[in-house]
């Protein structure tokens, strides 16, 4: 694992409630336990990752004074001169259990202007990060919008988290087109979450045309922990959910140990940084 190269860059997407944040935070911690440097990236203005990471406070805002107006031909806001991605991570990424660092915009409370400034700062940090320094584990808001607008383009692997419900499968089927986007990831993997039986995994595989990399069974201990905001690795460290995410970590590590094929981009979703900025400005 120590000579893993290149570093993992994975983003978790799916319908709201499917368990993206729970899987992503657990994945980040289990990867970090292998002695790897892990930076968790959260682009959800209602973040769930702090709970699965086990961070005491869920709001770690990037302050608005880190940005200045970008001026003509540049993004609306850019990092203040003298601030770079490494400094931003050093100052504003929260310290989490198992050594994971966690960078979010900050929570959305009322007016969105301050959040937009933080979003621009976050996007610039992610774009300018030294990708040889960190494994990146990202969590997007539920649904298709952010993913289709390119918020996961730092990732070369997208992990679709799917519940075996019709609505979750419907969203997943749309998100399965992401690798065909111009900026899209090179690989797409699937995790079935809250599975009740083997038929659930089969149903997901049949609908998406992708064999799941891991199947996390319905785990009452995880749900009970969720009520208290407690991470699965603390409430049920050896439970079936944690075991399934451990399998996922193995699969992803193995994926990165293999030579990758060059992506064959096609247009299927709005592309480029302009799209992401447009979304941030909404």
């Amino acid at each position, binding site marked *: 694992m120590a000579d893993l190269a290149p570093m993992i860059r994975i983003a978790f997407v799916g319908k709201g409630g499917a368990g993206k944040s729970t899987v992503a935070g657990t994945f980040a911690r289990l990867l970090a336990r292998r002695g790897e440097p892990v930076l968790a990236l959260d682009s959800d203005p*209602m973040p769930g990752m702090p709970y699965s990471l086990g961070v005491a406070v869920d709001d770690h805002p990037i302050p608005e004074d880190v940005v200045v107006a970008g001026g003509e031909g540049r993004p609306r806001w850019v990092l203040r001169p003298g601030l770079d991605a490494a400094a931003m991570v050093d100052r504003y990424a929260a310290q989490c259990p198992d050594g994971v660092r966690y960078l979010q915009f900050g929570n959305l409370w009322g007016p969105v202007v301050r959040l937009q400034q933080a979003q621009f700062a976050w996007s610039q940090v992610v774009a300018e990060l030294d990708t040889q320094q960190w494994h990146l584990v990202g969590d997007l808001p539920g649904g298709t919008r952010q993913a289709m607008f390119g918020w996961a383009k730092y990732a070369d692997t997208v992990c679709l988290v799917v519940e075996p419900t019709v609505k979750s499968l419907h969203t997943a089927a749309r998100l399965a087109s992401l690798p065909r986007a111009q900026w899209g990831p090179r690989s797409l993997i699937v995790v079935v979450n809250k599975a009740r039986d083997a038929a659930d995994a089969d149903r997901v595989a049949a609908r998406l045309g992708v064999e799941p990399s891991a199947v996390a069974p319905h785990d009452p201990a995880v749900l009970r922990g969720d009520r208290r905001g407690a991470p699965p690795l603390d409430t049920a460290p050896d439970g079936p959910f944690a075991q399934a995410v451990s399998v996922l970590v193995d699969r992803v590590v193995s994926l990165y140990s293999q030579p990758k094929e060059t992506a064959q981009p096609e247009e299927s979703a709005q592309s480029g940084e302009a799209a992401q900025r447009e979304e941030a400005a909404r």
Partner: protein
Amino acid sequence: MLGFAETGDAVVVADLEAGIGTLTRLEPAAVDVTVVVVEPTLRSIDVGRRAVSVAESQRQGRVVLVANKVDDEQDRARITEAFGARPLVVVPADPAVDAADRFGVSPVDHEPSAPAVAAVEVLADMLADMLGADPPVR
């Protein structure tokens, strides 16, 4: 659209995107009632508190809480403690709803007599009474 559409006597039921993004972008006083649905999890309660705050500051009508997927009295208490004395409807955790979700059918069609369906009927009655007795004036 919610604020300006001519809907006559029709009741408009809008299901907003998860989170509070859409709520923050609504025109002030665009709706008569905002129903905030929360699960008894820390995260859901946190989002619900933000939604209540936005709805009230933007004058989005009365705020009614729905506590969904409630298993027991502890779940209920977790929600009432977080939100105080507000109109509340409790929808119990209900396997019939889970099953309907898996089949992609409405809970009303899947099991009309399910406890969760009955609770949503209570919500409908509460809203009808609330608005019928004191119609909103914009």
